[in-house]
């Protein structure tokens, strides 16, 4: 049985070190090709006519004028007369023309009559949801009644995280081309190379095997790009009608309206405790929406196992449908939970760090690790020196505050297969039907293969982004790094063992007694007896060595799940303008065995940056009367800019204990805590709680005013 287990720390020359991402040169030179950049001869441009109403019935459609317009090559009715439309922006007619501008001209010439129906687009006020609020989901863990009876203090609060969008810089879209009557080539912006083809195959009545999916690079996904969307399928329909490839790429406004919404959660929370901070019980009344399908309950209380009761209303609204957003439900649950605990701590005038440490056993099964991480973060932040009781009482309009939060995530590797080839000229390729979302997937594959084969990273050619390669899972749930590193490790070990068999006679040694180190194949314990990698591969003659390695997912021993992390924020709030400035963020994170320290650190700083963005700025704002999104763009749907980001100090827990866990995903965990950590810091500074994100100046000033003016 080959030994696949990860090499010991002392034997690693690449894994865990700082290694630059291997596709960075393509990206910094503009050579990296994204779906948006793809072109095919005679390509047409697709455009969708979208319903302007949040809830309506299509009465009639007249495409006659559009069809006769210059450059128009195909028109397809997506939802015809009689169809009920449930959100503004849903697809009604698709058009393909010879240029983007002509397609837009034609789309404007399509006449659609609608019968408007009643809509609901805002859910923050549950009392106005009427029959759109479903029968509540209810559950109880432990005996909260006992805790509430024993309570010496009960803290109550309202907390909410609104619907936000993914706002991927590369909008959703595809370029589809019929290679034969029943064979489709799809360049699509996706996070699921091996799976996304099925989304074309089913509606187009093709065998899934006949859809060839290709994508080198994707300009952001964050959970919103798993499926082939209806506009992609309509692109293929138009391509068939016109007999030409069709590029169907969303405009920014379409992206913001229909291509991704993170469900909201609002919650009224009661926390019971003793005056010494011992947590006793918890009660949640929550509600939220992710569009027509409502919104499920967020896991509140989050991380902390407090006896509790939850009642949750899923509110059906007429907004573009929900999609998974980096760490689904966790940022919302984290915000509600950590803010409620912070409010409790303030009520009993306790440092929330002490409250967390006092109750740390409730974070089982990783209580010891959380404690270690809290203390480490406190040291990095100089927490004990900087923290003060709620409300900065120093003179002046600039108030300083400190906040903290903890989070968790799964992250076990997904099913993956890597076909590794060692060629007689010494080159090595890895082929996987995977994708690199900018997380560093290519880089970790190259590092694992290079480490195992004793080669430099440049010695490995990573081929991903094509559905013809062996299947690898979609990049969701932080499962990619575990999956591809495990499959790559096994493929590399097996390929090397085949190479050893070919090389052993030349070295006069038993194949089992060979090792690959520093670009050489050598006899263990006798490094003088060796061949360079090139000499060794030349022994293959004309036949490459090919080995396929797998990660089986769930029970795979090279990967694991369950990480923890702590984040702390230091902020300054101008109580005259309501503007929040973040002065510093600290992140302490465990993630099992680290493969590339550079891209791991970037995942954390990147996630915190995204977290700052959703905490301070992001909100999909819906007009109650029109039923439409009022900020479907990037000037009023704000993202954090370079000046909004403070120094971010990152500490990744390493060492044998972490190594022994195996590889665990990191993409999602660090995006969970920023909302709570920053909001708690703002509250610590101002003395008032802003119930719902984002922490925009108007909300902060409103909360201050409610308290009775500026302090």
């Amino acid at each position: 049985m080959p030994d696949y287990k990860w090499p010991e720390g002392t034997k690693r020359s690449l894994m865990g070190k700082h290694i630059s991402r291997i596709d960075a040169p393509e990206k910094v030179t503009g050579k990296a090709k994204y779906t948006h950049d793809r072109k095919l001869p005679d390509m047409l441009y697709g455009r969708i006519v979208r319903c302007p109403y949040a809830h309506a019935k299509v009465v009639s459609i007249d495409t006659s004028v559009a069809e006769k317009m210059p450059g128009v090559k195909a028109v397809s009715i997506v939802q015809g007369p009689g169809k009920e439309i449930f959100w503004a922006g849903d697809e009604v007619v698709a058009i393909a023309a010879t240029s983007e501008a002509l397609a837009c001209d034609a789309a404007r010439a399509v006449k659609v009559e609608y019968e408007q129906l009643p809509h609901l687009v805002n859910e923050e006020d549950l009392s106005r949801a009427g029959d759109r609020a479903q029968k509540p989901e209810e559950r109880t863990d432990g005996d909260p009644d006992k805790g509430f009876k024993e309570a010496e203090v009960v803290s109550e609060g309202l907390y909410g995280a609104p619907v936000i969008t993914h706002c991927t810089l590369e909008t959703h879209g595809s370029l589809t081309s019929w290679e034969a009557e029943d064979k489709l080539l799809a360049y699509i912006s996706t996070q699921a190379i091996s799976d996304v083809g099925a989304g074309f195959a089913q509606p187009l009545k093709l065998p899934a095997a006949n859809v060839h999916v290709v994508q080198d690079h994707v300009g952001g996904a964050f959970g919103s790009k798993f499926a082939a969307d209806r506009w992609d399928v309509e692109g293929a329909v138009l391509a068939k009608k016109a007999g030409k490839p069709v590029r169907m790429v969303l405009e920014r406004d379409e992206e913001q309206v229909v291509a991704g919404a993170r469900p909201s959660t609002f919650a009224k929370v009661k926390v019971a405790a003793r005056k010494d901070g011992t947590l006793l019980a918890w009660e949640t009344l929550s509600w939220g929406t992710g569009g027509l399908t409502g919104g499920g309950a967020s896991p509140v209380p989050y991380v902390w196992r407090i006896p509790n009761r939850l009642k949750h209303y899923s509110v059906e609204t007429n907004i573009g449908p929900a999609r998974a957003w980096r760490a689904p439900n966790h940022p919302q649950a984290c915000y509600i939970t950590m803010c409620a605990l912070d409010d409790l701590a303030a009520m009993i005038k306790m440092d929330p760090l002490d409250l967390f440490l006092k109750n740390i056993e409730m974070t089982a099964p990783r209580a010891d690790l959380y404690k270690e991480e809290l203390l480490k973060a406190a040291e990095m932040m100089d927490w004990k020196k900087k923290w003060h009781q709620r409300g900065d009482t120093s003179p002046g309009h600039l108030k300083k505050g400190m906040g903290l939060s903890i989070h968790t995530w799964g992250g076990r590797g997904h099913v993956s297969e890597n076909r590794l080839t060692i060629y007689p000229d010494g080159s090595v390729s890895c082929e996987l039907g995977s994708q690199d979302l900018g997380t560093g997937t290519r880089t970790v594959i190259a590092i694992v293969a290079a480490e195992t084969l004793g080669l430099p990273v440049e010695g490995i050619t990573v081929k991903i982004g094509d559905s013809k390669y062996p299947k690898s899972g979609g990049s969701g749930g932080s499962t990619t790094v575990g999956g591809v590193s495990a499959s790559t490790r096994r493929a590399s070990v097996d390929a090397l063992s085949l190479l050893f068999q070919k090389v052993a006679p030349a070295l006069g040694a038993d194949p089992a007694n060979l090792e690959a180190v520093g670009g050489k194949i050598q006899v263990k314990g006798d490094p003088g007896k060796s061949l360079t990698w090139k000499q060794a591969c030349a022994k293959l003659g004309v036949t490459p060595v090919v080995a396929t390695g797998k990660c089986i997912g769930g029970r795979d021993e090279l990967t694991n799940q369950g990480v923890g992390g702590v984040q702390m924020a230091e902020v300054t709030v101008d109580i005259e303008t309501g503007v929040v400035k973040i002065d510093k963020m600290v992140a302490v994170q465990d993630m099992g065995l680290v493969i590339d320290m550079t891209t791991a650190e970037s995942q954390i700083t990147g996630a915190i940056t995204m977290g700052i963005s959703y905490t301070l700025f992001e909100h999909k704002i819906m007009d109650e009367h029109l039923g439409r999104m009022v900020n479907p763009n990037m000037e009023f749907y704000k993202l954090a800019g370079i000046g909004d980001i403070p120094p971010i100090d990152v500490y990744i827990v390493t060492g044998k204990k972490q190594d022994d866990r195996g590889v665990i995903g990191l993409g999602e965990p660090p995006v969970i805590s920023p909302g709570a950590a920053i909001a708690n810091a703002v509250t610590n500074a101002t003395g008032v709680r802003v119930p719902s994100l984002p922490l925009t100046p108007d909300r902060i000033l409103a909360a201050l005013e409610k308290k009775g003016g500026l302090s």
Partner: protein
Amino acid sequence: MARSRDPETKPKKGLSRRAFLSRGAGLAITAPIVTGTGLPAPQGAAADVKILGPEKVPITLRVNGKSHTLSVEPRVTLLDALRVNLDYTGAKKVCDRAVCGSCTVIMGGKAVYACSVLAVEAQGKDIVTVEGLSTTGKLHPIQQAFIEHDASQCGFCTSGFVVACKALLDKNPNPTMKQIEEGLAGNLCRCGTYTGIRQAVLTAAKTMKGGQTNA
């Protein structure tokens, strides 16, 4: 950050941006209507302004030192001309209205949002795209520094940032952190690469002062 509306880049005669936009493609609007908007009437409008379109017109663009002749409708932006007609796909279309900076190119020595410049008005000016920074096959120090500091993730904003950094350092070879943040305030990233970008600019500035620049 009204980069693309720098008065110095406005043509002195012929087709001005304002005159063009106030007319729309292929439509001549008389002076009183322009005056009615509260804007000053263009100088000698009737005599000087050449009306283009709506059909395609031939234009010449000088990109990365090479002249290209192409035929575009006057409403086509510089970004679309670069990406669609000339296959310079480094500049990306993201917001398409001068907010995010992913389409940043250097035109006449200044960083502009290519999504908000018409191709017809980009004629006669030197245009530098991200592809023009490493024409000798050697990476520009800014590109090298971006790699060193892991200043790209998905990479979709990266071209725009690299070009914006070039324009910033051309103008101010020794920027403070505050000046870097101001200079790059017109570019947005979704993955969160700002911390790497800040370090990359400092490193690139240092390298470029050492005379190792190739552009």
